């Protein structure tokens, strides 16, 4: 029997490979396999079972902090100096990985199940399942990697599967545009990520996280370059997690089938950015973390303001996703590590649920997505409705839900951060977004499920979705309740989750840490980066500084009160405006028309990028193509023309001057000959006269001698 840790590694590899096998089978033999959809779904449930086993073993029984498996991928040999250039890759399982494995396989298998109903008459049904498999494989790859290169590799692969799935209905121009946009906008962030990797490898000569961290702890990479490397890696997360300013692709990605939106563009792939930040967390300096916190907060705010004006049910959810991702990023940035990861997990469940529930609505309404055409669906679709309500309560942070636990932790962290650093803008944004979130979520519910139906024809045909679609909703709704994470509905600290996901110890030089962490560091190491290496990694039992912890506890009840009040206010406001109609939404809209227009048009980001980056690149490419054709090739052709001109000139010279001289001499000789010929008469008398003349001339010429 294998020891348990190698069993877990084997199982993890199996979990990783299974969806890939599904992909390969479906892509090559898709139409020839009967019920290929069930095959792929079954594979996913098998992977889910393995993942649950891994998680339970790892989180609750195993004492080792991580299990590692590394192999040598490339060995570039060595130079004579003995320098060698190996590239090692591998997988590792720690608590976060184990939890994420379950999150990914769970959501993925539920989405597979849901799609059995939602997609069953699709024209590219087997292709759809193949791509889902490819996506799941790549996402699991990100989760399992123990090195930054493999993260990048799978990062790009999820980008590919996202591209393929957004463009699933590629006959529509908007769909293929959206896929392209998603891929390219992501690439913008990925270039930053890539350069960050280059910096890391150049300084530390390894891609392994453990090697990176120990190298930084030894001071091989520090100062502003370390901060820059951190921010550049974060650029990748900005792209993938749709953070400002690269958030523009995610709303467009809603062109994909709704289950895909649930899996990729809500629960898992977009959270990969957050996961990446969590993975490289120990190497992030205070400077980098501050940037991350601000980007997260700005994102949360911008997208929440947009969400309140949108009418497409999926667009609202898309902006809500961006906003929640902003929360997570902000949480990590302010130092509330566990809270950020926690929100990632709870959000995965309730946001996947929201998308699947909206999918259920869209399915019932025959692919109508405009909420203004809906209404009154509560009675027709009770399961969907109640699931929707639970998800919405959760995302709004109302007690007894999972969202309350995780969001509250993030807000507490941002509060403490504001108090300790004086950056009060971040908690202010954090709390105001609570209000906006509750408002737009319940606006959505009321417009969709309450009141009178607006499109009676569609309403008549609407009915509750089949069991394959409602079961996933029920499962996810259950998972949006507090009990799965902590038995105390008001205190996540008492749950298993926050005990399993512990903030890793930072390795950055002391001077580059947050102030409260500087205080927490042992006094004698304060001024020497090198001394950090003396502290063996993973020994300190309490990586979160006591100062931070203390402030968090002091402010906890104030923060809780503020956030609850705001959430309830937001919820009430939605009811006042949209359900009870105490305030006319149209009039309100007219009164703040410029603001509404601005928000409704998504702050004009698309227009801005279209007019600058896109148009600029296209114009530049046209200009360079012209330059290439006319100037550079013009020079080449010009040289050819000049050469030909020169050759024709020298041809003429040759013909008229050189050959002319030759011909002239011939002609002249002929002329002379013709003249002389006249003397050759053939008469002896004439010759005698000439001879005599000659004798006389000679006589006179030589007379003097």
């Amino acid at each position, binding site marked *: 029997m294998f020891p348990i840790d190698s069993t877990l590694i084997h199982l993890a590899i199996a979990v990783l490979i299974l969806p890939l096998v599904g992909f390969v089978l479906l*892509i090559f033999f898709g139409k020839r396999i009967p019920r290929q959809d069930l095959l792929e779904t079954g594979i996913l449930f098998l992977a889910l079972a393995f993942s649950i086993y891994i998680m339970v073993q790892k989180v609750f029984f195993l004492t080792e902090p991580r299990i590692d498996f590394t192999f040598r*991928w*490339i*060995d*570039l*040999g*060595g*130079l*004579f100096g003995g*320098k060698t*250039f190996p590239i090692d890759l591998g997988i590792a399982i720690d608590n976060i990985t184990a939890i994420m494995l379950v999150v990914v396989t769970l959501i993925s298998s539920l989405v597979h199940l849901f799609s059995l109903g939602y997609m069953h008459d699709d024209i590219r049904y087997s292709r759809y399942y193949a791509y889902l498999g490819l996506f799941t494989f790549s996402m699991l790859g990100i989760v399992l990697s123990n090195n930054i*290169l493999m993260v*990048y*590799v*799978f990062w*790009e*692969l999820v980008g*590919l599967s996202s*591209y393929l799935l957004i*463009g699933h209905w*590629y*006959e529509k*121009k908007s769909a*293929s*545009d959206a896929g*392209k946009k998603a*891929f*390219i906008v992501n*690439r*913008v962030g*990925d*270039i930053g990520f*890539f*350069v960050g990797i*280059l*910096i890391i*490898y*150049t300084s530390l000569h390894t891609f392994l996280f453990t090697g990176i961290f120990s190298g930084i702890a030894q001071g091989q990479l520090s100062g502003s370059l370390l901060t820059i490397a951190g921010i550049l890696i974060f650029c990748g997360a900005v792209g993938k997690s749709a953070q400002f300013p690269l958030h523009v692709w995610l709303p467009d990605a809603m062109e994909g089938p709704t289950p895909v939106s649930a899996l990729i563009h809500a629960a898992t792939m977009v959270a990969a950015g957050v996961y990446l930040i969590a993975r490289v967390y120990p190497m992030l300096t205070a400077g980098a973390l501050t940037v991350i916190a601000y980007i997260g907060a700005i994102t949360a705010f911008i997208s929440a303001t947009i969400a309140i004006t949108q009418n497409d049910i999926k667009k609202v959810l898309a902006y809500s996703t961006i906003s929640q991702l902003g929360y997570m990023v902000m949480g990590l940035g302010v130092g509330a590590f566990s809270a950020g990861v926690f929100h990632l997990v709870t959000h995965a469940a309730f946001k996947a649920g929201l998308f699947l529930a909206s999918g259920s609505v869209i399915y019932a309404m025959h692919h109508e997505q405009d909420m203004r055409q809906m209404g009154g669906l509560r009675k027709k679709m009770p399961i969907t409705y109640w699931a929707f309500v639970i998800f919405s309560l959760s995302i709004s942070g109302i007690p007894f839900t999972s969202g309350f636990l995780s969001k509250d932790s993030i807000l507490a962290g941002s509060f403490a951060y504001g108090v300790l650093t004086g950056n009060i803008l971040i908690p202010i944004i954090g709390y105001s977004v609570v209000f906006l979130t509750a408002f737009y979520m319940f606006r959505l519910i009321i417009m969709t499920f309450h009141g009178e139906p607006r499109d009676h024809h569609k309403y008549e045909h609407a009915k509750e979705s089949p069991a394959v679609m409602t079961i996933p909703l029920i499962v996810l709704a259950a998972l949006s309740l507090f009990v799965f994470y902590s038995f105390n509905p008001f205190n996540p600290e008492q749950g298993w989750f926050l005990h399993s996901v512990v903030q890793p110890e930072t390795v950055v030089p002391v001077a580059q840490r947050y102030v409260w962490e500087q205080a927490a560091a042992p006094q004698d190491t304060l001024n020497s980066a090198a001394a950090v290496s003396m502290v063996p990694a993973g020994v300190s039992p309490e990586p979160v500084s006591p100062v931070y912890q203390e402030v968090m506890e002091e402010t906890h009840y104030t923060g809780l009160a503020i956030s609850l009040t705001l959430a309830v206010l937001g919820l009430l406001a939605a009811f006042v405006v949209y359900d009870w109609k105490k305030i006319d939404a149209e009039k309100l809209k007219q009164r703040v028309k410029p603001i509404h227009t601005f928000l409704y048009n998504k702050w004009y980001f698309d227009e801005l990028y279209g007019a600058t980056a896109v148009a600029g*690149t*296209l114009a*530049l*490419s*046209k200009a*360079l*193509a012209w330059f*290439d054709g006319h100037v*550079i*090739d013009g*020079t*080449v052709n010009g040289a*050819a023309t000049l050469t030909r001109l020169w050759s024709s000139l020298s041809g003429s010279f040759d013909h008229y001057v050189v050959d002319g001289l030759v011909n002239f001499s011939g002609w002249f000789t002929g002329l002379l000959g013709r003249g002389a010929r006249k003397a050759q008469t053939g008469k002896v008398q004439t010759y005698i006269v000439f001879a005599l003349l000659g004798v006389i001339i000679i006589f006179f010429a030589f007379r003097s001698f």
Partner: protein
Amino acid sequence: MQYQFLGIGYLTWITFLPILGMIVVLLIPRANTNAMKWTALGATILQLVFAALIWVNFNPALTGINDVSKFQFVEQTTWINLQGAGWFGHVVVQYFLGIDGLSLPMVILTSLISFVGVIASWNINKAQKGYFALYLLLDTGMMGVFVALDMFLFYVFWEIMLLPMYFLIGIWGGPRREYAAIKFFLYTLFGSVLILLVMLGLYFSVSIKDPVTGQMTHTFNMLAMMNPANYDPNSLLGGIGTYWRDVAFIALFIGFAIKVPIFPFHTWLPDAHVEAPTAISVILAGVLLKMGTYGFLRISFPIFPDAMLKYAFPLAILGFINIVYGALCAMAQTDFKKMIAYSSISHMGVVLLGIAAMNTQGVSGGVLQMFNHGVVTAMLFLVVGVIYDRAHTRGLDDFGGLANQMPVYTGIMTVAFFAAIGLPGLSEFVSEMLSYLGAFQTFQWVAIFASIGILLTAGYMLWALQRVFLGQLPEKWKGLPDVNGRELVAFVPLMIVVILLGIFPSILLHPMNASLNHLVDFVHKVGTGLSAAK
């Protein structure tokens, strides 16, 4: 000699097999075109077999580069021996073949692409006899360039390749074939003249002791040219970091740069590619472009290491220009084939960027990129060929929605496009990553700016993909058939290589390592040693 077949060395076989094929083709009666095709196919398959034999028997521990005892499959005899020609002394040209880790990938690439090219030529319907004869002659020229170690011999092969290429474009090409062929020929010939001049300069500067007579004689032996001790005192190219060595390096650089092609010497390439028949575009982009960068690594850098180190930065800048400029020009094209042609310019810039860094990662990445780009771009040109064969147009805006009409074709195209984009898991990712990794260590900012190319490539490739394959299918293309079996035979091996090398790049990197590391060491040691002695 160990590796022989019928008493003739493997390298001679692999180089001259196509010539045998050519002779057979010429003997076949004009009407029997099938026999010609199968002869060409047979010759290239046998060539591929020899390439496989060479790969299997290749010893990855041996370095090569400047040491004949570390070369493999060496064949060395006197070819031309002129006695006592006045002050020339004694002219010896050797038939000197051998390979190391630098030439091995190129030998494999040439055999593979030549094989694929024959399949892509199957539908040539004009003067087949001439076509296949010239094609095989071209094959010999290419292979010879990659195995020759005597510079005179190298030059002979280099020129042999030119002639068939001229006719293959000029006779079997598109509407502007004559213009393109002449442009290609003259441009390349211009480069050849520079190479010839440098070769003569080197010849008269280098002397080695004749092993038989013990006299000092001039030599065309490349390996001898790499040893600073062999240069006659006061000779033109002797000494260290001198003016004339710089001039020679630059002249040689331009000679090879035209082939790569490096900005601003690249404009022959789009014309030649667009006009050439599919198989010839495949050969051009797949193999011919690599001769330029191979020339840098085999000849320019080790013979002029001092100048190489001196000009490394400008080389990297040119690499950057190639990458970004090529990508932007590609974006503006409306002709599918021209877009791919410009993408070649962009991707060859990555090679230049990598090898200019002159470190292990950069050079390994560069050479791997030469191989990978050869395979990927061959696929891309085949993709264009398939659609052109069927629709007789290549306008990117003339199509749309082919994904539903030709699903298998679309699948193949997707692999090729994403390989060109540098998607991880496919071959070009590894080589681009290594090239950038190397470049970043030497020229931080150049590498950072060049990485914009990664973004631009995704931009124009996906845009082209969308325009041709996605959206609604125009009515007139409703009847287009999907790829047939013959086309699959061309695609599948390339696709396997693309995926395999994306996942296990070590297959190819391992045999290259020793040689490339030695090259890096050698250039730095000799290059700085020479500079220091100044």
